[in-house]
């Protein structure tokens, strides 16, 4: 029994890329925050200067990153809840593979969100470049 190719659970419509969107956002957020703080402290504020501008930037990155992760996670949730299937989605069917990928995406999104928050936590406590 095969689905038509436009059907959401058809194999040609599955992608691993959506799985790694959230961790990629986390990595980008980490890198951007790090580079922003480094450039800010070296070129703008000076070694003992205030972190203000970098803090605002990192706050914006964080919001953007969390929204991105949330959208990706929401997508994962929808695929996970497709039809009527219970975790662990381990049946050898296109539907369960579809649900499984969605569920993994959702879990990675949750992990990435926590990691982004942990990284952003630093600038809550630090207000200068030291």
């Amino acid at each position, binding site marked *: 029994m095969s689905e038509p190719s436009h059907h959401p659970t058809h194999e040609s419509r599955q992608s691993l890329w959506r799985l790694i969107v959230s961790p990629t956002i986390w990595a980008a957020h980490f890198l951007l925050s790090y580079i922003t703080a480094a450039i800010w402290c070296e070129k703008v504020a000076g070694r*003992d200067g205030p972190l203000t501008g970098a803090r605002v930037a990192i706050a914006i990155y964080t919001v953007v990153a969390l929204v991105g992760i949330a959208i990706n996670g929401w997508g994962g949730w929808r695929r996970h809840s497709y039809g009527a299937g219970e975790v662990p989605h381990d049946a050898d069917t296109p539907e369960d593979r579809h649900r499984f990928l969605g569920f993994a995406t959702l879990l990675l999104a*949750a992990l990435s969100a*926590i990691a982004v928050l*942990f990284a952003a*936590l*630093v600038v*809550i*406590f*630090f*207000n200068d470049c*030291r």
Partner: protein
Amino acid sequence: MLRSFCHSRFNATLALIGGSGVQSSLDPAGREAERIAALFWWMTGGTVVIWLSMVALAFYAIHARPEAHTEKRARLFIIGGGALVPTVVLGGLLTYGLSMLPDLIAKAPDGSLRIAVTGEQWWWRVRYVLPEGGEVVTANEIRLPVGEPVQFDLDSPDVIHSFWIPTIGGKMDMIPGRQTRLVLHPTRTGTFRGVCAEYCGASHTYMAFYAVVMEKADFKRWLEEQRQPAAEPVDPLTKQGREHFLANGCSACHTVRGIGADGLVGPDLTHLGSRLSLGAGFLPNDLETLTRWIARTNEVKPGVHMPHFRMLPADELHALAAYLASLK
């Protein structure tokens, strides 16, 4: 033989200083060390709690309820125990640790005592920057007033060293080409030991110092004494020693204020006799060791930059050591 020599000397020095705790971060004598000790105890306590919980869970699973759980209950265990609890615990620890940091690296208030310490292979160049201007230079020993914040400005001309007095506070790297900062608040008087905490070459182990926390009045008196030029030799032997010090060119590397010795390569020796140790915190400061140090530096401290003076006649070495020991 050399090792046993150093070892016995070191033990003797320890005994001299008075028992344990001179280099323990679990016996804090500074505000920063107290916080680090508190963090250590919290983490140890937390670790014990987690470990006990795990043992309890294992016991529960094996003995109390060996039969299978319902799906719902199992999911609760996995999500709660596997994801939520670690997230909360790590989040809490991170928050606690981060909240300590700004204070630990904060600048000392204006007007605080400032000490510039340069870590060199393998000794410490120490300069007290006086608020009224000028500085007092010494080496391989740091004295601090109790109950006051002290700011250390740290750097290095050669390789990365790390400045650490475990009993008083955390450690801070000394990096060639940039200045790092460390603020310490000693809370009780006593003699403690500091070390280089970053491997820096052959004699890294022998790069230490004593940190003496004193009552404020005592500290003031000490600093004033250190500020003075070298003591004038009184007996013929030490007078002779001073002549040898100058004639042998010791002054090309060492400063002894007041006698025209202005070398900057090695440690300032103006008040060498008043220090607790020789060779950067690992040898006792007595006449015998001092003589041996001058004659056989390279054997006592591998790789040391000071050349040995084995070739000097014994009486010259003796007079030199006597003179340096008299510089109280």
